[in-house]
């Protein structure tokens, strides 16, 4: 957060309504928090908001303050975070401004949350052995009743499950009923398609993108050649070159094949030396104590990580250059330099690891919804946790650098909380719509479908305050969608508490008419199609305004909007329109376009995605 908020155009100087912000409570369902972190210091905070119904039940060795006003735990004996993840995500959403934060001098700057004057309620659902569904259900049950304003949930399953068997979908549905928006991460199973596991339309699902600060590190070989790699290496060798181990293992305990990927090491071969670890991204170093390590480019979908030793990750080409040098000399040596940061002019791009759409449960709901910074994010950490995740790494850090959709999620939670301070009466769907329709377009690689990677685009918080129009969705709309999806009336009645929940005519094809701020549909290949989407927008911009529609052309489809102009005479006035998409035996797998409503001041953009089934 020493760079990410500035990068998305959300500077420290942003206009704030501090009195309102201090009444906002962000619930964080995670690994707990480290209460003594500077990010959660309560200096300058006033009394607890009057409408707060929660409690401080943080357990052993956990004290709340005027910043941390709620704490509960469902795993272990306390809300105290001994992993670091929850402290990192919570401080990204609501952390105070902390000057001079860094990880051993790396990524130095002011660490800050999206809503630094807001309060936090921590719900710990994980312990050393993991996070369980029953604890997540309990956390939602409490957080909703406690009266949180926004929920940030940086966890989820790897598999896609039906809404009524997914605790985050269930919990966020009941949160939405009470006006609480849940922000959830897309998952880290990218870049492969159909991997997004957070698919319910009533929550906002966040993909991870890069920021313009990129970490690199260098290794200087004994022959003077410098190779450039990546990793977050806080160690400096101060100009000393160390020998490179020619073999990592040759004993019965540590066979050569396993040693070559640093799954095990023979101490007598590696002590005081740099080891080569092949393509094992997360070496165990079991049995040996090398001075450093060099790893070949890790697998697709992985990211930079903090290393427990002076280490770096090289591309396959540079790794081979290193091996060639090693074989050319009897005593190969190298110096691994401390990481440094460079400006990445390509940012933002979606991270490889970020899970991709399409949504396999409800294809009409484009997921993920939005993209936000989630790569190499510096935020507060638990001093009790190992920053590299290795038990032998005894360093203790108040801040750490982590990547994942877990890190992008609290950025959007912070923006949602910020919007809530300007529009306290807006529904969760309206806040979500404002975030989505104001998003910036993003770059994408040729082999990626952009909208399946980043959803509506990259978060654009200042524009989101004044979206002009919103696509609102009521509880009744979501109930009708469940009926249209085929959920039995009796089930929907139980979920919603409404009698005759599915009394209106239901049809699977009507799911596309949920008033979602993105348009997505599956069509059969080798057939012609005409699809109509109905949408309604609510004027939240200028009372007297006229919006005109513009369609981003795609040669594979024809898109029309009726009417093409919407004239508003008052605020909160609603107008409906129909988007018609026609295509003739499409050849591409995915056809994309977008609909833009503009009054010259506000731009309200919705992606259009036609998925051609094979």
């Amino acid at each position, binding site marked *: 957060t020493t760079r990410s908020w500035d990068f998305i155009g959300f500077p420290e100087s942003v206009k704030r309504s501090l009195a309102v912000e201090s009444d906002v409570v962000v619930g964080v369902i*995670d*690994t707990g928090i480290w209460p003594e972190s500077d990010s959660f210091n309560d200096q300058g905070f006033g009394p607890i908001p009057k409408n707060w119904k929660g409690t401080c039940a943080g357990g052993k060795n956990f004290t709340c303050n005027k910043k941390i006003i709620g704490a509960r735990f469902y795993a272990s004996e306390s809300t105290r975070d001994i*992993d670091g*993840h929850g402290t990192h995500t919570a401080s990204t959403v609501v952390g105070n401004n902390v000057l001079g934060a860094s990880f051993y001098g790396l990524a130095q700057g002011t660490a800050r949350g999206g809503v630094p004057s807001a309060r936090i309620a921590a719900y710990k659902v*994980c312990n050393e*052995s*993991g*996070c*369980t*569904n*029953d604890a*997540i*259900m*309990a956390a*939602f*049950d*409490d*957080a*909703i*009743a406690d009266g949180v304003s926004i929920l940030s949930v*940086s*966890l*989820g*399953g*790897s598999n896609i*499950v*039906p809404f*009524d*068997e997914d*605790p985050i979908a*269930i*919990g966020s549905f*009941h*949160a939405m*009923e*009470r006006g609480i928006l849940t922000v959830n*991460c*897309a*998952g*880290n199973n990218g870049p492969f398609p159909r991997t997004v596991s957070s698919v319910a339309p009533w929550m906002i699902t966040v993909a991870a993108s890069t920021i313009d600060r990129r970490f690199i590190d260098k290794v200087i070989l004994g022959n003077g050649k410098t190779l450039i790699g990546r990793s977050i290496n806080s160690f400096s060798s101060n100009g000393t070159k160390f020998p490179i181990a020619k073999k990592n293992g040759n004993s019965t305990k540590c066979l050569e094949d396993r040693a070559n990927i640093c799954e095990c090491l023979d101490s007598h071969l590696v002590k005081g030396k740099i080891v080569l670890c092949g393509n094992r991204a997360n070496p165990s170093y079991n049995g040996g104590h090398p001075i450093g390590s060099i790893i070949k480019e890790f697998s697709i979908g992985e990211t930079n990580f903090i290393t427990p030793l002076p280490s770096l990750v090289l591309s396959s080409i540079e790794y081979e250059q290193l091996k060639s040098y090693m074989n050319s000399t009897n005593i190969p040596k190298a110096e691994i330099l401390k990481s440094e940061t460079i400006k990445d002019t390509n940012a933002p791009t979606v991270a490889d690891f970020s899970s991709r759409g399409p949504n396999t449960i409800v294809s009409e709901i484009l997921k993920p919804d939005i993209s936000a910074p989630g790569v190499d994010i510096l935020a507060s950490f638990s001093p009790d946790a190992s920053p590299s995740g290795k038990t032998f790494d005894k360093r203790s850090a108040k801040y750490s650098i982590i990547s*994942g*959709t*877990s890190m992008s*999620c609290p950025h959007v939670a912070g923006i949602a909380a910020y919007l809530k301070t300007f529009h306290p009466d807006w529904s969760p769907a309206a806040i979500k719509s404002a975030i989505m329709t104001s998003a910036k377009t993003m770059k994408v690689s040729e082999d990626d479908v952009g909208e399946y990677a980043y959803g509506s685009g990259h978060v654009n918080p200042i524009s989101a305050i004044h979206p002009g129009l919103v696509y609102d969705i009521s509880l009744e709309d979501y109930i009708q969608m469940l009926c249209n999806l085929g959920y039995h009336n009796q*089930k929907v*009645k*139980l*979920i*919603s*508490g409404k009698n005759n929940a599915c009394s209106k005519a239901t049809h699977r094809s009507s799911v596309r008419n949920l008033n979602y701020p993105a348009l997505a549909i599956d069509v059969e290949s080798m057939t012609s199609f005409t699809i109509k989407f109905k949408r309604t927008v609510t004027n939240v911009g200028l009372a007297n305004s006229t919006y005109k529609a513009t369609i981003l052309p795609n040669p594979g489809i024809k898109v029309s909007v009726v009417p093409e102009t919407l004239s508003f005479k008052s605020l909160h006035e609603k107008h409906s329109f129909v988007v018609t998409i026609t295509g003739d035996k499409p050849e591409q797998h995915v056809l994309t376009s977008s609909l833009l409503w503009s009054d010259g001041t506000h731009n309200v953009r919705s992606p259009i995605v036609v998925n051609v089934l094979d």
Partner: protein
Amino acid sequence: DASDDNPKLHIVYMGSLPKTQYSPTSHHLSVLQQVFDGNDATNSLIRSYKRSFNGFAAMLTHQQKEMLSQMEGVVSVFPSRKVQLH
């Protein structure tokens, strides 16, 4: 696994809380008693969800899970799996 009779932690989701006067925990126990003998239902109940929505977590065999899934008032019964930090 249908052949596995070892009880496992499951979530029994029952939807919204009724608006009329309602005692969730005693209802949850009475639901469980329909698939358990004697006091085993009390020992099986791990947690009740009763503040914002309705449901409970309980140790159930596959057969008990199947029986509960068919009961009136139950939306879904699913295993309490582990999820990942992302």
